[in-house]
């Protein structure tokens, strides 16, 4: 039984839970990554289908232990709800030179490769900044339709300014490790503002307790809303149960709000896609002659814009 070639056939196979549903899901994810247009087409087609209960973003600097921690979370969720599926999206960077990528997050999760209730997909950034890609949103939806209860979105290793994961996840966990800066780093704008919870990983490290205390102090003194600061050691497999408890607590408290947020983001994505297409058409209709017209004073910017818009059939 071969998988379908068209989007609607693939969607049907994903939702049917047939023997081929994983193959079809894998294929559909590639289609979703193909173009912005396809991403939106798939998102809209999946609107009425099953959705993931929790979409958690996992982000942090390279080497903080995100992949191993993600693998541990999968084990914990699978142990708690043996009948439910877990999806993982792991993003790694593309080369700015060759366009290629090494997607190596899976290495830390191979224990789950043969679990029929785990679906792992690796993605390359393909030149997009922000830590996740445009196709990610559709891939989250495909995992939901496949039956995933929880989807974990692990970003590329990020610095201070990549927080696009916030646009695809219900909540974002920021993973830190001892040695990653002092209280001034915690005070800075950007990444530290978007975390719904913080995790100090590598808590087996001797400096972890002090790092944790500094982080708690900084967050409590600069932000009015109290956000959890957890401690884990992915290596020693400690603190994982508590991590999942906190995520479940957030879901119980915020799921209505998350639902509204998802709807709002879907609308935002459609808007962005429509504008992207409109801009593409405008660009293809644009002629360099217009520049000379404006430069010589024969036309104005706004008049040239009017003419450009009306020149599109």
């Amino acid at each position: 039984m071969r998988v379908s070639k068209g989007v609607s056939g693939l969607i049907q196979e994903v939702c049917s839970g047939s023997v081929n549903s994983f193959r079809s899901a894998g294929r559909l994810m590639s289609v979703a990554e193909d173009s912005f247009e396809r991403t939106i087409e798939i998102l809209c087609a999946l609107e009425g289908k099953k959705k993931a209960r929790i979409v958690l973003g996992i982000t942090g600097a390279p080497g903080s232990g995100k992949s191993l921690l993600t693998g541990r979370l999968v084990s914990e969720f699978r142990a708690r709800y043996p009948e439910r599926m877990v999806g993982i999206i792991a993003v790694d960077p593309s080369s700015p030179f060759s366009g290629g990528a090494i997607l190596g997050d899976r290495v830390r999760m191979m224990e789950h490769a043969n679990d029929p209730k785990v679906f792992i997909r690796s993605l390359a950034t393909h030149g997009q900044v922000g830590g996740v890609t445009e196709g990610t949103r559709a891939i989250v939806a495909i995992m939901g339709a496949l039956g995933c209860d929880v989807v974990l979105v692990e970003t590329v290793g990020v610095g201070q300014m990549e927080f696009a994961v916030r646009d695809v996840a219900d909540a974002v966990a920021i993973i830190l490790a001892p040695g990653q800066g002092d209280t001034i780093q915690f005070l800075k704008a950007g990444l530290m503002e978007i975390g719904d919870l913080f995790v100090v990983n590598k808590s087996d490290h001797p400096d972890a307790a002090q790092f944790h205390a500094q982080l708690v102090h900084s967050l409590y003194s600069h932000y009015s809303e109290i956000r959890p600061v957890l401690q884990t050691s992915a290596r020693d497999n400690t603190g994982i149960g508590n991590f999942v408890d906190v995520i479940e607590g957030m879901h119980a408290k915020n799921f209505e709000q998350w639902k509204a947020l998802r709807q709002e983001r879907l609308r935002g994505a459609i808007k962005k896609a429509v504008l992207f297409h409109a801009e593409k058409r405008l660009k293809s209709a644009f002629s360099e002659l217009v520049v000379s017209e404006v430069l010589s004073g024969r036309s104005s910017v706004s008049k040239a814009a009017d003419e450009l818009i009306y020149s599109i059939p």
Partner: protein
Amino acid sequence: MNTNTEKKKPTRFLMGKVGLDGHTRGVKDIARLLRDNGFDVIYSGLRNSPLQIVNTAIQEDVSAIGLSFLSGAHLSLTKEVMVLLKEKFADDILVFCGGTIPPGDIILLKGMGVAEVFSTGTSHKVIIEKITAFLGEKSDESE
């Protein structure tokens, strides 16, 4: 196959080692080679089982799998990968083997359906040329 006008996404390629063999120099070298030639390489690491490789290939929707061997177990393990791919309706995924493989075994591997075998000493240039040619033929078929 790719009918939209936007830039084509890189080809997805799974690189891994099956069986009990900890020698990663070769597999990492080829992963890097593919990366530098514009592939998205999914690296699954060491000591994978054939089933792990096949499940990974399906979820990652790769066009091809590269298996690297030094252990001497290439015949039985590759056979298992090929059988599982067929069972899961995924035998349109190309399989390449490489590493320490005696010349006499190359024909046996190809007989199992392996696209090409790169033994030690094969140059980067030849590897990329052959892989690209095989993948080109494959995408022509699915047109």
